[in-house]
């Protein structure tokens, strides 16, 4: 066979830990899907709000803003832990991965605890009226994703600590950071819609 007619790829690595990996792209598309879902929910919220004369509906108190705003701090900082772990994954530094994942888990856990505490003070549930349904839809769906990724990150953490990992698991740490950036990032518009928009579009009673 003539050399010119073959393309030899044996020198290429059999793995890749970066945005060139197919898994990274797959995760990106999942983010598109989730992002679209939340966007539609946000649009629906405003559609309903603009059709109703009285906001908040009678008997509802708008959710308080202090604790959720404070919770933003550990939440955003937890992304730094993800970043640290992701960079360590690329360099195959076990200590870095453990440190980054731990930081991420602790801060994400703190933000979650603050969120769950704050929920007790919301004086309506999803059955009450449209505001209730939308508020709890946002909180419920986002928190579901949040907890799911938290669990996934804990499992990754256990695997890395146990030393039982290879390139595939390091790619997992890298892609997990992308998931976390999405979960933190999508929270910002949801937080604004759930906690601040009611005040902005409030009608005088």
């Amino acid at each position, binding site marked *: 066979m003539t050399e010119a007619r073959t393309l030899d790829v044996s020198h290429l690595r059999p793995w890749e830990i970066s945005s060139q990996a197919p898994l990274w792209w797959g995760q990106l598309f999942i983010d598109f899907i989730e992002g679209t879902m939340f966007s539609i929910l946000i649009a629906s919220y405003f559609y309903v709000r603009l059709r109703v004369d009285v906001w908040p509906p009678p008997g509802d108190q708008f959710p308080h803003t202090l604790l959720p705003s404070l919770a933003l701090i550990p939440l955003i900082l937890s992304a730094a832990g993800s970043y640290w772990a992701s960079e360590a994954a690329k360099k195959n530094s076990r200590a870095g991965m453990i440190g980054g994942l731990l930081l991420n888990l602790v801060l994400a856990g703190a933000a979650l605890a603050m969120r769950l505490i704050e929920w007790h003070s919301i004086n309506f549930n999803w059955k009450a009226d449209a505001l209730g*349904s939308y508020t709890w839809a946002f909180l419920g769906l986002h928190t579901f994703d949040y907890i799911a990724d938290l669990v996934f990150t804990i499992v990754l953490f256990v695997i890395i600590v146990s030393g039982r990992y290879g390139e595939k698991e390091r790619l997992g740490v890298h892609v997990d950071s992308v998931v976390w950036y999405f979960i933190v990032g999508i929270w910002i518009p949801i937080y604004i819609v759930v906690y601040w928009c009611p005040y902005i579009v409030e009608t005088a009673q």
Partner: protein
Amino acid sequence: MKPAQDVLPNVPTCEQDIADLERVWRHPRGIGGWLSYTTHQAIGMRYIVTAFVFLLAGGIEALLMRTQLALPNNTFLGPDRYNEIFTTHGTTMMFLFAVPMMEGFGIYLVPLMLGTRNVAFPRLNAFGYWMYLAGALFLYWGVFTNAAPDMGWFAYTPLSGPQFTPGKRADYWAQMITFTEVSAMCVAAELIATIFKQRAPRMSLNRIPLYVWAMLIQSFMVLFAMPAVMIASSFILSDRTVATHFVNPAEGGDPLLYQHVFWFFGHPEVYIIFIPALGFVSAIVSAHTRREVFGYTAMVLSQIANGFIAFGLWVHHMFATGLPQIGEAYFTASSLMIAITSGVQIFCWIATLWTGRPRFTTALHFVYGFIAIFVLGGMTGVMLASVPLDLQVHDTFFVVAHFHYVLIGGAVFPLMGAFYHWFPKMTGRLMDEFIGKLNFWVLFIGFNLTFFPMHILGLKGMPRRIYTYPPEAGWGPLNHLATIGAFILAIGGAIFLANVFWSRKYGRIAGNNPWDADSLEWAAASPPANYNFEYLPAATSRSPLWVPPEDRTFVTGLRNDRREVLVTTLMDAEPHHRYVLPPPSIWPFLTAVAVTIGFAGSVFNAWYVTWGSILTGICLIGWFWPRRPLELEP
């Protein structure tokens, strides 16, 4: 051991390589093995076969409806049964036949056309199929337990709300949507990743086959449209089961919001079905006229434009709800605009047929049938885009005629052509051409006889979704004609099945490339080995198989002792890294079972969301648990 390909004469087949590939890519044995298959050919076939079964189910439902409507004041079906049947017919055809069938072909063909061995996420692929099957079985469980949905396939609220549709009927419908949309989103994500990252070396973006472009665009549309129907159906399910107020008017919910969210999905949905069919037409036209489709760039840009514009049309389903005039004008304009992008493609195909050397095979017959029927459907679509006209014919049999013309003409006829074109690749034998042409004519005549009269019925005032009508309305004769046509269509379906079964046993042996076609799937064996190609091909032209054999290039250096493929760059498909795919696994099936427990159970008791999530979490841990070898040898 037969060679994987015989169209690269300058490459001697290496027996050891073939033995390794056969061993590494072999299907696992037994029932547990069958549940663990992850090859794209097997999963693609499963989608195609399952979707075909649901095509038959939807067809039977249609025949039942047509029997009831054949005569005025007919008593074959009462209103409840009729309402269940028309709802189930629409739901089955849209969610359980059309989209999964197109996806099945995509899963089967795209890796072959790209010159790779499998999709980027084989286990996700398997999971997606099980979710589709579970959703379909869940809905039909409802159908056979007197809980078939009965509120129309788009389930407008408040009719589909708890007050007006009591019981579980609408719940089965809404949750089936969740199942099938999860499945569709898995397929979309993996197809895009495969198309972006696993193309043959040198298959730059402007060398991608038109069918693959169609699947790429369709997959992006799925990503952005399906979430809307998930939300819409979840609004309904949640209002019904946990007393929320998203779309029920009692406490501030809004029925029109439901329509907006639903149709934001619903309009792109028909293009999600239709765009892959356009890809079929391109593939068939180029192979059976032996020239590259005219106007590649125009074709690609039109399809991309189609994909975008499709998202800007949805309000044309809501013209009767009393919208502001400026909004109506905008949606008329955008609905008319999409005729341009479809028109450009028709012109390009006609130009191709005009200057090629057509071979009038059955597949090409279906292309001509597509042109005739789809263009007529497009004409009525232009009429429906006009608000004053739409206000008269909306929700009448005129619309029923329109969408059957564009869906059957625009998607099913190309699909039939696709069957005749790719059957030899999938089974190794050609379908019979004589029976095929008979098949075409019976379907063509039956289709027009069924649906053309419906245009007139709509203009004569016959609304949709009515279980009967009085004789003095004057709709009897045309309905009778339509019913005769429907039975002729059914005969056409039977002829097709007969041809499939006969040809599987007695059809002429096809060889790798019976049509002398140009795309890479025709380089693999018929049917392909699980690993598709012994050596992955490179693509130095838009029509790689029309490059003389001595000028073709292929890839060496991939390991054959594990499931390894090549990842290339996005724009120019330069080799970037090698990518090891996982072996067959039972986890996708188990995860699907866990998710099914959650989804299906939650229709009866909301706590199942929690149990299902926990079970799913456990299965996902199993799925991703590290397996040996941990470090990959280079």
